[in-house]
């Protein structure tokens, strides 16, 4: 190489190059640093053998350990499922009526139900369970229940669905279409009367008579509705499909009736129970007073 010389002030040898009077001292790297570098190379060889590394045309090399990120996920999911086994068993054992008494189990059920709701129910009812008035999906946060709001009634609805074809026990009711049944003035009067039931309009004798003749059989004389028939309450502040005169006219002439699929067979009984707990916990859940007396509702059998 070039002219190496000893640098006077430092006593270190130069590398022998000079750039416009600037010279570089030869300060060798510590040897352990080199070893560390070799170690990383050895490590990488081991890594390439043990783990997926080389990308090939379709797939990469597999590695002798057989590790995959999907496999790791599956293991973690299995572990998480195992961790839930005791809770799920306890939920399967506990009748839904007893669930609110066990606040810890209830909290677990609500948490599980919240997750299941996001996957299975939020498509119609919304992620906050607020439903949609425009599309007629009921709001599950309020205290107005079409078919009953205690845990047992909610679970029954979940199991059998609403107007689910092919399920004998499904919640079923039909409102007949009234298109052509009323004179325009009579229809107007009826709408005014229905609005007046919840204090939104003036009392109206013609409308009241029309209501008594055509509607009261299901909706009740004062519009109090009927849960046995799934007839909505008309004398409260909550409207499933809107409260404008136009909304009411459409619903009377060509009623729309919602359908909810039955979840029996799609979801396991414990998940349904967790969904029940979650929906009940949203704030409008009822205690066992109003519907629980219905002997037709028999969901207490062991799942």
């Amino acid at each position, binding site marked *: *190489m*070039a*002219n*190496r010389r000893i640098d006077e002030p430092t006593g270190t040898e130069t*590398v022998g*190059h*000079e*750039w416009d009077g600037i010279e570089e001292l*030869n300060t*060798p*790297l*510590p*040897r*352990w*640093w*080199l070893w560390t570098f070799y170690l990383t190379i050895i490590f990488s060889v081991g890594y390439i053998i043990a783990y997926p590394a080389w990308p090939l045309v379709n797939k990469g090399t597999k590695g002798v350990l057989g590790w995959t990120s999907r496999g790791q996920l599956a293991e973690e999911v299995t572990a998480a499922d195992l961790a839930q086994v005791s809770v799920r068993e306890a939920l399967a054992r506990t009748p839904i009526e007893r669930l609110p008494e066990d*606040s810890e189990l209830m909290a677990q059920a609500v948490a599980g139900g919240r997750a299941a709701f996001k996957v299975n129910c939020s498509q119609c009812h*919304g*992620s*906050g369970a*607020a439903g949609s008035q425009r599309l007629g999906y009921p*709001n599950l*946060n*309020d*205290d*107005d229940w079409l078919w009953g709001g205690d845990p047992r009634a909610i679970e029954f609805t979940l199991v059998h669905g609403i107007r689910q074809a092919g399920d004998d026990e499904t919640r079923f009711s039909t409102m007949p279409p009234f298109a052509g049944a009323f004179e325009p003035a009579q229809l107007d009067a009826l709408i005014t009367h229905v609005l007046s039931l919840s204090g939104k309009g003036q009392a109206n004798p013609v409308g009241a008579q029309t209501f008594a003749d055509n509607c009261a059989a299901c909706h009740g004389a004062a519009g109090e509705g009927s849960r046995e028939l799934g007839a909505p*309450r008309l004398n*409260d*502040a*909550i409207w499933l499909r809107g409260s404008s005169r136009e909304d009411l006219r459409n619903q009377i002439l060509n009623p729309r009736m919602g359908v909810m699929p039955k979840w029996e067979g799609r979801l396991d009984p414990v998940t349904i129970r967790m969904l029940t707990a979650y929906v009940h*916990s949203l*704030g*409008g859940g009822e*205690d066992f007073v109003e519907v629980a007396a219905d002997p037709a509702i028999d969901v207490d059998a062991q799942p």
Partner: protein
Amino acid sequence: MHSLSTGPNPGDQGGEARPEKLYEARAAVHNKRIDGPFRRFKWFVMLVTLGIYYATPWLRWDRGPYAPDQAVLVDMANRRFYMFGIEIWPHEFYFVAGLLIMAGIGLFLVTSAVGRAWCGYACPQTVWTDLFQHVDRFVDGDRNARIRLDAAPWTWGKVFKRGFKWSIYAIIGFATGGAWILYFADAPTLMRDFFTAQAAPIAYITVAVLTLTTVTLGGFMREQVCIYMCPWPRIQSAMLDEKSLIVTYKDWRGEPRGSVKKAQKSPDDFGDCIDCMQCVAVCPTGIDIREGAQIGCITCALCIDACDKVMAEVGRPRGLIDYATLEDCEREAKGETPRPPWRTLLRPRTIAYTLIWGSIGLGLLFALGVRSHTDLTVSADRNPPFMLMSDGSVRNSFTLKLRNMESRPRDMEIAVEGLPGAVMWSDTIRRGDAAPKQIVTVPADQTLTVRAYVIVPAETAAQDFAFLLTSQDEQRETDLVETRFSAPGEEP
């Protein structure tokens, strides 16, 4: 010399072609045993620091039935940090940050007052390196024996000695890592679990990693950590000035060097340094202090001990190598009297550091003293923002987090303030018991999440209101959190 080419150029090589020395093996440091005031001080600091390190996890501190009784505990699983009477939650990590800042400024203070005292005496790398060097001396003998053994061929005797020495290294490393994990769990329980193979895998992994790093850094890397790896010597070289205390060879007194015999022949030609190399022999980082202040000097002052001993033997005054500031050295060289030590310690820089350090400490103590052990956070549901009930009343849902930082369960009252007609219930309080104020019991040292439902009569407008949390004990700690009640017709 004028070529810019860096590649090999056959024309330039001539006859002096030598292989490039790109990598350099470490020159082993075999420091000689020495006794003296600084060595004894180093023993003392080692005893104190190692004593603190090993004893602290075993100290107990009674916190009642709801909290652990270990005086210093970093409880990762429950996210609590205990230090004697202080308990820190994750959201109060600024206390730890403050302590770290104090430690940093404390180092600045120490450096400006007494130079690299941290490096020389208290740094764990120094303490453990010192420990390992004593093991070397215990197994292999002093400097000369070790140099001989190093150069000797690998006989069975050498293999046995090396094996014995490295086993001691491993035991020290294991003890280091083993003590470390005790800070993170109940020490007696963890100790028992550890040796009955019942501790968590992370405990064994941590001990294994720390054993490895201790043996590598303290047993084999040693001074290379200070010279090549540690950023602190670099920062310190920037912080030292002519008023900083450093270990200095007084060259005006020592030079030119000469043996005792030469100096006896012509006393006027030689200085006090007899070139006995004792200062180099005892140096734990293997440097020659006579070359002046350098990054490898950790100012452990063992060379002072060595030189003073030699000076006493040859009948010359002590302090040829000594703790001194460069300013004092200049004065001394000119024959002036050095400034008194307090002037080295008390100068604007050290006073400023002390003030900053002290005020951060006082600020932390003050913050610790006045912090509330009760806290409320409120998060209003936004999906849906409000809920119309069948009687026209309006309900809002809130997620409340009630924090109880006392080590006992406490009753706390949640009250709705400034929302006329409002009543409240929760996921654990039945709707039939709805009231403007509710009492809940928050478990010891926990945050309780309460899902609260607030309902107001029909026609109530959207408005701001507040939740008031009051602890139902003699402390009556309160926290008021403002939030908003949403209602139909509210402008977004």
